[in-house]
């Protein structure tokens, strides 16, 4: 049986991943999402407790930092690091995956701008797929910082972009190019010289990939 924080009334399970469950429900009359980290029986108790605690705290603090950097993300309402519970406001919208075909370049440019704001605050998202970007009234919201980290290595920021680029490529096929260009434009307009360095690194990562593929065919 699932255990829940007091006052939380579960409505439905949104998602069950390897690491956490995501529940939609109400808490103090607010529509919220509860992220519950799953205890792992294969890990010794002390190690599991420690990982759940530190990861819950880290995610809460990254969400806070992201908002401080000026990007839209869920508000953290309640944290219980011992239980591994994180209650956040529910971002009600459609994922970028669903709306990207009909959305204009302005939204994509905002996506790029916000990713740069995140990176300039040394936040590496860690799983920057289009399904982790929610669009509400043509504004992007960023969710799931569970694999994120505070870093200053531009390689990590380029990795973030690479993840987004690759998933757009596989989802959109040839039509991805225009969409991706709008995102990159937003990123560079916001970040100037520093953002160009990161884009250069991204291109380098892409070349590494091609080199690998060419080698396979030898």
């Amino acid at each position, binding site marked *: 049986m699932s255990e829940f924080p007091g006052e939380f009334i579960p409505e439905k399970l949104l998602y069950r991943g390897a690491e956490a469950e995501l529940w939609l429900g109400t808490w103090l009359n607010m529509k919220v999402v509860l992220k519950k980290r799953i205890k*792992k029986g*294969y890990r010794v108790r002390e*190690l599991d407790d420690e990982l759940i605690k530190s990861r819950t705290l880290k995610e809460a603090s990254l969400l806070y930092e992201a908002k401080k950097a000026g990007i839209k993300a869920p508000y953290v309402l309640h944290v219980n690091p011992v239980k591994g519970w994180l209650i956040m406001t529910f971002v009600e919208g459609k994922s970028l995956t669903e709306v990207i075909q009909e959305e204009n370049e302005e939204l994509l440019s905002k996506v790029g701008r916000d990713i740069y704001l995140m990176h300039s605050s040394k936040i590496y998202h*860690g*799983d920057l797929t289009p399904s982790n970007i929610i669009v509400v009234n043509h504004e992007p919201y960023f969710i799931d910082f569970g694999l994120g980290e505070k870093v200053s290595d531009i390689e990590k920021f380029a990795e973030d972009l690479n993840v987004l680029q690759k998933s757009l490529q596989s989802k959109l096929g040839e039509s991805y190019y225009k969409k991706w260009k709008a995102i990159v434009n937003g990123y560079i307009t916001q970040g100037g010289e520093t953002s160009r360095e990161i884009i250069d690194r991204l291109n380098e990562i892409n070349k590494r990939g091609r080199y690998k593929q060419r080698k*396979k065919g030898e």
Partner: protein
Amino acid sequence: MLISLGIETTAHTFGVAFVNDKGEVLSNVKSVYTPKEGGIHPREASKHHYEVAVGVLRKAKEEAKVKMEDVAVVAFSRGPGLGPCLRAGATLARAVALKFKKPLVGVNHAVAHLEIGYLKSGARDPVFLYVSGGNTQIISKVGDRYVVFGETEDIAVGNLLDAFARSAGLPFPGGPKIMNLAKNGKKLIKLPYVVKGMNVSFSGTLTAAEKLIGKESIEDLAYSLQETSFAMLLEATERAMAYLKKEELVIAGGVGANERLREMARTMCEERGARFLDYPIEYYGDNGAMIAWTGLKQYLFGDTISVEDSKVLVRFRIDDVRIPW
């Protein structure tokens, strides 16, 4: 009935086996090179392999009760591995193939570990956790290739255990000694735990554990090292299973002989409603049977090579191999 002769000499192990086309292992003999001190020395190991070659082959032949005339194909481990060791096995395979006029098959060592895992575990569509002295990869079959979804960003988990054992003055092989010491460990010492998506990194864990030698009891260190590194492996593996929506897990490679790792794998699978498919320990570590079995499959798909083209491939990548079956 087709019978295959397999020769494995990638690293420490010189293994020879006879396997038939039903997947029955008729014999599986090995001789393991043990360094007097330090890690493996490729030339010393290959010297050992040349010395024991004929004796191991004879023993395997006797146990299998086969005559060379009955053998359909000679398979050898072509790589990846240590050049001098690989060449020892290749030399024996070529000699046998030429003398008895048998077709020759070059087998990818990593593919062979997974294929014997398939055969012995009865898995249909698993995620593989391939863990040995030189490899740490999370692999699954996509179309006609084995694809690596996650791997170590630095050293292999077997290397972590061996290197720590050496630093602690434990004689080779370090893995089993650490497993036994860990059973008496009580205190969990905090060591770096680094998982990035489906990848892991062990070098920081090794350095931290080595620094504590002499300061903490060896039992507690062995216990903490195992608990930390194996939990990292299973977290990355579970993520791969969730991502690929696979319900079976098979471990391959020498570290799979570790009881604690298999116990943790079983628990992880039970908790997510998946199945951990175990099989006899002799097929986890390097062995001739995996080469014979994989070689036989390749032979059935016409994948033979001439002696002239049979040079070993030290950096033979698993995704370079097409898997037609």
